[in-house]
């Protein structure tokens, strides 16, 4: 009886906490179909008017396009770089391993406001109107530590003798990577890519500093319209 009670309390607690973590974010779905001009929940009525407005407004569609492009380039840069670094961290017998590992995780420890400010100052100092490419590079910096963490975790259980076997059988480095390594760590690679895309798609602070007034990305445009 007592054990039963304990068990139900545990389940109830974990369900309530998950609802607290998940439900509030889902509120935006009904809000998107609201007929109201104002932020009102529950909405007074439902329509697809806001979607029509979004897709008919070149500013919003442009922001969406820019965001998607920036996110794709962020993943294209950070995933290969992070993969190479993760491979090195697992394989290289070097004294540099520990300090470099800390170094590669550094962007996670510094608030983005500080990073964005520094980058903004640098572009002004160099008189370099970087625009979206600078945003891509900054997002790649933010994504790299997450990619490294995801892929080192995957490579830790990877059997490196398979690489030897492939090489002994005559496969080149490229062939070994594409037909032995990548298929095995594919799930982790997919996860890392997803994380890199999300990191970029949700980043508003640095993008505001660099392209806030000229070519805002979607989170920047959203942020500006909320605040």
């Amino acid at each position, binding site marked *: 009886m007592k054990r039963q009670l304990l068990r139900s309390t545990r389940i109830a607690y974990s369900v309530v906490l998950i609802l607290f973590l998940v439900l509030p974010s889902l509120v935006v779905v009904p809000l998107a179909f609201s007929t109201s001009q104002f932020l009102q929940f529950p909405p007074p009525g439902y329509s697809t008017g806001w979607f029509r407005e979004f897709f008919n407004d070149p500013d919003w569609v442009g922001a969406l396009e820019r965001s998607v492009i920036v996110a794709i380039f962020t993943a294209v840069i950070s995933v290969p770089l992070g993969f190479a670094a993760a491979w090195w961290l697992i394989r290289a017998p070097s004294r540099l391993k520990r300090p470099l590992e800390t170094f590669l995780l550094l962007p996670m420890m510094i608030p983005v406001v500080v990073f964005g400010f520094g980058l903004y100052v640098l572009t002004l100092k160099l008189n370099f109107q970087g625009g979206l490419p600078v945003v891509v590079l900054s997002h790649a910096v933010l994504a790299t530590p997450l990619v490294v963490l995801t892929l080192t975790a995957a490579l830790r259980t990877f*059997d490196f003798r398979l690489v030897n076997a492939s090489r002994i059988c005559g496969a080149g*480095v490229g062939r070994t990577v594409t037909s032995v390594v990548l298929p095995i760590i594919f799930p982790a690679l997919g996860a890392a890519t997803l994380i890199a895309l999300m990191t970029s798609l949700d980043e508003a602070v640095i993008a505001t500093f660099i392209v806030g007034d000229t070519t805002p990305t979607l989170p920047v445009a959203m942020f500006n319209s909320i605040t």
Partner: protein
Amino acid sequence: MSIQTAPAGTGLAGQPATTAGTSRPRGVNLLVLPATLLLLLVFVVPAILMLAYSVTEPPAGLHHLHEALTAPLTRTILLRSVTVAAEVTVLSLLLGLPFAMIAAETSAKYRAVLLGAIGCTLFFSVIVRAYAWLALLGTNGPVTDALHALHLGSTTGYAHTRVGTIIAMVQYGVPYMVLAIYDSVRRIDPQLPKAASVNGASAFNTFRWVRLPLMLPGIAAGSIIVFVTTLGYYVIPQVVGSPTDMMIGQLISQQINQATNWGLGAALATLLILVSLACFGIFRMLTRLENRLS
């Protein structure tokens, strides 16, 4: 994969994962170069430039750092940021700790659901979440109405208040706390708590003297992640919080964009970097100490 080559305990910080008969192509050492270069050029150079600005912007010297630490406005905001970050950390810990323990002790199936849900929330957009809280906590929002019906809380709601910021930041912090603590809970040998209770320890004593000490590394890791993230966070306090109740991230941004007082902005950013790095430094020292002791 049935073949296991990585020796037990081989981690990033451990000994090199050498396996008998593995040759290492020389090119391997170049692999870390591209990521390192990217970070150096795009991250380290701007950071150093900014640190330099805190002392080189006229009036040069320690003027800006002194102002950041002593001017009434900046002092209030620094103290407020530390207080809010501490409150968010404690609340996330109180909510996350039981959850991590439940996740570790439940059946594999239910555990997958619990941790899967936690993992999912990490992918939710922060801006969207902040916006959602604004709707929920507003004057006519459902949370406000519910609290009012229970004769709790204010009728005007918690949008644009510090309570709103704390609620939204806790929602952001709990998943990180849970994942950090879960990582240390799952390493606890299940025999240990059992041994304690067989020997007559009460449930509370087993928790206090067996489980809690073993969970401390995870608790420390989670608390530091949540504290440092909250301390410098910009988006959530800016959207959900009040403009008169600014946090340090907002102050930095304001000094740059509106006040164009780069010296003070850089000095505040320098302080924020120092505090963040100090927190992680302390954490690394603690884990190293712990490894040596065990």
